[in-house]
């Protein structure tokens, strides 16, 4: 038996009655006794707290940090201001993904990359190899950093009373450093749910204390702990990619419908040549959102998209949508099928089931 990695909140989850699962080698709560659907609705309507301490934090420092990252990743790092964040990828020369990440700019020579837990070692190796001829230091801070994500429309009301910075001044995809009841923390207005919310980074040995303080502050806001099960359905409704599903080492950023992170005009970057070619010639397959037309059909990850008995694509993620009340998913399909209203067929347990391409994100919160 391989032993699973544990976050500093492992015992807390168990004491709360969480159902624990192996998530990329980590022992993580998929749901609490509340259940996935109720947790999902609570995040959309009120507020939930997620343990995301398993996520990786990679510091990139040095005189050439900004230039290096601007070459390493496809989004325009030089356009970021101190305190700003953007979503981007670590790409192969093919334009496909090593990982996706949030890139935080502390200053011109100090950046924090937040990466997927299951990819930490791979990312570190990748970045270090490529950094050899640059004046930068690559530091893995994952084991020293705890992280919790407070998500939902009441997030600000829960967090504001216990932190000394004015959270209303932090815009979406910006961050700040603050004093959390005496503890220095980093607070980012980000998340993986499509709701407003804050991700709080702290010293790993303080994570349980931070969790408890936030839960206590959230009592009068009906805050509940929420697990990875609803995190997945929430992110899917918001069309946020999950590594290993929408993106992997064979799916390019343009195929994943992420032209918004691919700044072909910014100058040279890793993967640019391939992506420029793909952009000029047009991609042959692309990620689309779909809705199952029969109420009882639920598409699941990896199910084939079929046409005349042949597999022409596949479902990257599929699930019932608790918010929207129908079954939806994302699929990689031939580009000719990307138009809204296009009909596709998904093979579910040997049966061809009708679906329709619909606009994404499936869910967008009211501003």
């Amino acid at each position, binding site marked *: 038996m391989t032993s699973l990695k544990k976050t500093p909140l492992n015992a807390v989850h168990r004491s709360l009655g969480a*159902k624990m699962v192996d998530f990329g080698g980590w022992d993580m709560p*998929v*749901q609490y006794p509340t*259940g*996935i*659907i109720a947790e*999902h609705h609570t995040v959309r309507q009120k507020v939930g707290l997620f343990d995301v301490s398993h996520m990786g934090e990679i510091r990139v420092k040095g005189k050439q940090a900004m230039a290096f990252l601007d070459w390493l990743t496809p989004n325009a790092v030089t356009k970021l201001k101190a305190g700003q964040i953007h979503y981007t990828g670590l790409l192969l020369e093919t334009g496909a993904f090593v990982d996706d990440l949030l890139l935080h700019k502390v200053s011109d020579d100090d950046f924090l990359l937040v990466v997927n837990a299951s990819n930490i070692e791979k990312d570190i190796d990748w970045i270090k190899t490529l950094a050899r001829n640059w004046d930068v230091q690559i530091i893995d801070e994952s084991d020293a950093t705890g992280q919790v994500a407070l998500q939902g429309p009441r997030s600000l009301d829960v967090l504001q009373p216990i932190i000394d910075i004015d959270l209303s001044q932090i815009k979406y995809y910006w961050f700040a450093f603050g004093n959390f009841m005496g503890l220095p923390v980093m607070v980012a207005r980000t998340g993986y749910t499509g709701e407003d919310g804050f991700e709080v980074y702290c010293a790993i040995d303080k994570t349980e204390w931070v969790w408890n303080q936030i839960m206590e502050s959230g009592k009068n806001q009906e805050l509940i702990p929420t697990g990875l*099960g609803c995190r997945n*359905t929430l992110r899917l409704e918001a069309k946020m990619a999950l590594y290993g599903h929408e993106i992997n080492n064979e799916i390019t950023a343009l195929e994943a419908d992420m032209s918004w992170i691919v700044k072909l005009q910014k100058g040279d970057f890793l993967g640019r040549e391939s992506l420029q070619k793909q952009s000029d010639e047009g991609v042959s397959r692309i990620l689309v959102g779909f809705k199952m037309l029969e*109420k*009882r059909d*639920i598409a*699941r990850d990896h199910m084939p998209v079929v046409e005349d008995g042949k597999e022409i694509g596949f479902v990257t993620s599929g*699930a*019932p949508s*608790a918010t929207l009340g129908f079954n939806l998913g994302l699929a990689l399909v031939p580009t000719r099928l990307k138009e809204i209203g296009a009909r596709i067929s998904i093979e579910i*347990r040997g049966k061809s089931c009708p679906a329709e391409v619909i606009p994404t994100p499936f869910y967008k919160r009211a501003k």
Partner: protein
Amino acid sequence: MYPADLKYTRNHEYLKPLGDGTAMVGLSNYAQSALGDVVFVELPEIGASFDPGDEVGTVESVKTVSEYYMPTAGEVLEVNGELEAHPEYVNEDPYGKGWLIKIKISGELNPELLDAAAYEAHVASESH
């Protein structure tokens, strides 16, 4: 969690004999908990006959889908139509409102069915 008056399969269905040659069939508490929130239950045609171990239908949860199987030979007398509007009954009350089908038992009861104690031991061995 595993009522003593029921019989169980290794695939986590239960059979509740009603004493008149009929029985209710559903998912055990362990099964509903493992599935998580159920959102759809595919039910068979009334009158359909199955052998022990035959696939009867599927149960879809938010996370996953699972087949369920006939615990003993029999014919479907009734299906739980309430589940169409309330699939959550499978989670909330697996041995009551969350029943799946009512069957007429054909012949002898499947000898491989487990009693509550044996089933509990089976569950313990699977979850470790």
